[in-house]
C-alpha cells in the first residue's frame, strides 16, 4: 500500500491525522466487497478482508496477521488452488512470478480468479474474483456454439451472421463452399459484397435498423455468384437482433439456393399453362372453325354470285372480297397451327418443298435476326427428296433450332460484354438430300452448348437460358417430332458455336407418298 511510505516523514500533528486516515482506509478495505489480501516483504499476512475470508473459506487461524504465505497457500492447496501439481515446487514457482494471474475451481465448483501483484515496497497484494457464473455461461455458450455449428454445418443452408455495420462475424461451411472462400477470408467482409452487383440496392435496406413495430424477420430473394461462376438465386431470411430501436447487435441470415426451385416452379407453371392450353385448344379450335367456315363459305358464295362481272366496279369489289377471304383462310391456318403445336406428333403427311419450308421458317424469326444483326445463309438443293412430316411439323423443328441459335448468339454477346467488338452473329443452314435421307445442319457462332448440358439438351424443360428466358420446350419438341418421323437429331459444339444435325429418312422408297 503506497500510503505508508508517503506518510512516514509527516509531523506529529499530521501523524494523528495520518493515523486517522490509515484507520479509515483499513476499515474501507475491510468492508470492500472485492476479496483482497495483502502480504508484507517477509511473506507474512498483513491483512485479509471479509469478502476474501468468505470466498476462500479461510479458517480463523489463517486470517491472523503474521500468518506465513506458505501456510496461507497450504490452505489454498486443500481448496484446489494447486490442482494436481507438486505444492512445494509450484509454490516456489509462483513466488518467483511477479504478476501472477490464475484461476482454479474449488471442490464446491466455485471458480476463483486470482490476480497477485508485487508491491513496490515489497510484499504482495492479492485480488480474488468469483468468476463461476461467467465461466459457466461461457462454457454453455461454447457448447451451444459447437452444437449450433454442427447443426448448421450439416445442412445445405448457408448461415451467416454479421454485426450492426454489416461486417460478417460468422459463416458456416456451406456458405464457404458456396462462395468458394475460406472462412477466414469471409469474416470481416461486408455482407453485401457477397450479393450480385445489380441486386445490392435491393438487399441494402435489409441491413438497416428497424423500428419497434417492424418485423424483425424478413425474407428476400437475390442473386449471387457461386464459386464456379454461375449466377444463382438465393432466398435469404434475415433476423435482426437489436436491444433497442436503432441499435443493432447482430443480423442472422439463413440462406437457401433456390435456383433450381425457382426454375422448377417456373416450369411447373409453364407446364400447367401448356396443359391447360392443350385442353382448351381442342375445344377452341373446333369452336373457332365453325364460324370461320361459315364466314369463308359466305364470302365464297358472294364471289360465285358476282360471277363474270368484269366491270371496273365489279372487279374492285371482287378484289376486296378476295382479301377478306385470304384473311379468313389465314385465321384458319393459325387455328390449325395452334393445334399442331399442342399435338405435334399426331399428324401425317409428306413434304417435298423443304427449301420453301426453310424460307418460311426463317421468315418467322427474320425480324429478330435483323434487329440483333445476325446473318443467315441457306445452302440447299432446289429439289429435295420428299420427307415424312407436314409443313407445320418441319416448320416447328426449324423455327425452334433457329430460335435456339439466336439465343445462343445473344448469350455469347452478353458474355463478351457488349456487341460492338463481338464477331457478327451468323447462322448457316445447309441441306443435303440423299437417296435414303435428307440431312439438315443448322450451325451458329454463338456461345455453344455447355459440356454438361450436351446430354440433356433435348430433355423437356431443360434450358441453359436464364429462368424466365426459354421455356426449355423448343428443342424437346423438335426432338419429339424428328424421332416421330423416324429421324434423328443431334447437337455438337464447333470451334465457335454449336451445330444441330437433323436427319430424316425420305419417303421415296419405303413409304411412297
Amino acid at each position, binding site marked *: 500500500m503506497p500510503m505508508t511510505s508517503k506518510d512516514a516523514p509527516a509531523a506529529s500533528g499530521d501523524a494523528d491525522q495520518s493515523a486517522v486516515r490509515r484507520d479509515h482506509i483499513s476499515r474501507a478495505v475491510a468492508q470492500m466487497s472485492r476479496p483482497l489480501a495483502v502480504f508484507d516483504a517477509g511473506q507474512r499476512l498483513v491483512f485479509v478482508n471479509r469478502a476474501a475470508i468468505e470466498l476462500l473459506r479461510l479458517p480463523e487461524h489463517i486470517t491472523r496477521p503474521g500468518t506465513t504465505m506458505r501456510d496461507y497457500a497450504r490452505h489454498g492447496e486443500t481448496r484446489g488452488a494447486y490442482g494436481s501439481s507438486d505444492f512445494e515446487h509450484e509454490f516456489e514457482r509462483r513466488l518467483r512470478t511477479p504478476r501472477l494471474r490464475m484461476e482454479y475451481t474449488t471442490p464446491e465448483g466455485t471458480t476463483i480468479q486470482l490476480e497477485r501483484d508485487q508491491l513496490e515496497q515489497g510484499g504482495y497484494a492479492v485480488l480474488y474474483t468469483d468468476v463461476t457464473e461467467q465461466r459457466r455461461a461461457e462454457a454453455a455458450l461454447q457448447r451451444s456454439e459447437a452444437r449450433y455449428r454442427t447443426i448448421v454445418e450439416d445442412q445445405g443452408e448457408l448461415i451467416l451472421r454479421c454485426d450492426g455495420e454489416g461486417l460478417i462475424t460468422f459463416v458456416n461451411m456451406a456458405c464457404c463452399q458456396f462462395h468458394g472462400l475460406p472462412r477466414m477470408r469471409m469474416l470481416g467482409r461486408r455482407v453485401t459484397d457477397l450479393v450480385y452487383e445489380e441486386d445490392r440496392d435491393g438487399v441494402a435496406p435489409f441491413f438497416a435498423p428497424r423500428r419497434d413495430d417492424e418485423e424483425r424477420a424478413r425474407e428476400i430473394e437475390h442473386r449471387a455468384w457461386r464459386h464456379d461462376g454461375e449466377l444463382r438465386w438465393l432466398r435469404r431470411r434475415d433476423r435482426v437482433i437489436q436491444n433497442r430501436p436503432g441499435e443493432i447487435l447482430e443480423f442472422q441470415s439463413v440462406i437457401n439456393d433456390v435456383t433450381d426451385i425457382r426454375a422448377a416452379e417456373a416450369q411447373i407453371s409453364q407446364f400447367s399453362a401448356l396443359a391447360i392450353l392443350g385442353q382448351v385448344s381442342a375445344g377452341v*379450335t*373446333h369452336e373457332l*372453325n*365453325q*364460324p*370461320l*367456315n*361459315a*364466314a*369463308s*363459305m*359466305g364470302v*365464297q*358464295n358472294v364471289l*360465285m*354470285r358476282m360471277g363474270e362481272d368484269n366491270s371496273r366496279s365489279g372487279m374492285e369489289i371482287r378484289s376486296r372480297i378476295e382479301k377478306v377471304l385470304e384473311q*379468313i*383462310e389465314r385465321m*384458319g391456318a393459325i387455328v*390449325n397451327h395452334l*393445334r399442331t403445336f399442342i*399435338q405435334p406428333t*399426331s*399428324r*401425317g403427311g409428306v413434304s417435298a418443298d423443304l427449301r420453301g419450308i426453310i424460307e418460311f421458317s426463317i421468315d418467322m424469326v427474320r425480324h429478330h435476326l435483323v434487329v440483333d444483326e445476325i446473318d443467315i445463309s441457306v445452302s440447299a438443293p432446289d429439289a429435295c427428296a420428299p420427307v415424312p412430316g407436314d409443313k407445320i411439323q418441319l416448320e416447328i423443328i426449324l423455327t425452334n433450332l433457329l430460335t435456339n441459335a439466336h439465343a445462343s448468339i445473344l448469350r455469347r454477346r452478353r458474355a463478351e460484354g457488349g456487341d460492338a467488338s463481338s464477331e457478327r452473329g451468323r447462322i448457316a443452314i445447309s441441306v443435303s438430300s440423299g437417296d435414303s435421307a435428307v440431312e439438315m445442319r443448322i450451325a451458329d457462332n454463338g456461345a455453344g452448348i455447355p459440356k454438361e448440358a450436351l446430354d440433356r439438351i433435348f430433355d423437356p424443360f431443360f434450358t441453359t437460358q436464364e429462368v424466365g428466358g426459354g421455356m426449355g420446350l423448343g428443342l424437346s419438341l423438335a426432338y419429339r417430332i424428328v424421332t416421330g418421323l423416324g429421324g434423328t437429331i443431334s447437337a455438337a459444339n464447333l470451334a465457335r458455336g454449336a451445330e444441330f444435325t437433323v436427319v430424316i429418312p425420305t419417303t421415296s422408297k419405303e413409304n411412297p407418298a
Partner: protein
Amino acid sequence: MSLEEVRKRLRAVDVMVVEDDLPQCEALRDFLEFSRVTFHIVHDGRSALQALEEYRPKVLILDIRLPGLDGISVAQEVSKRADPPVTILVSGHMDSVVEANQSSTQPFRVIEKPVNLNVIGRFIRQALERRPGLE
C-alpha cells in the same frame, strides 16, 4: 313402277348435308342452290341415317362432329349399305380423319375447314357424272 317407287324417286336428291351449325348450313344451302343441284339438309347423325332411305342422295356431305352419332360412325354405317353415296367428311382438323381412316376399311374423302367451295363443287360434279341420275 309402284307408287311407292315413284314417290321415292320424286324425293331423291343429288346431295345431302349433315351439319349441326346453322350458319354453315345456310352458307351451304346458298352454294348448293347456286350450283343448281337438289339437296336436303339434316342436323344430326341419327336423322341422317333415317333420311338416307328417303332421299337416297348421290353425295353425302358429312360434318364429323355432330350431336348424338358422330360423322365417322354415320359414314361407316353408310358404307355398309348397298349402293352408298359418295361421302365427303368435313373436319375441323385432320387428326380425327386420320384416326377414322385407320379404323375403317374404306378411306373417306376428307376436306378440312374452312372449306373451299370449289373443291366441294368438284367432288359433287364428279360424283354426279360417274353415277348418272336414276331418272
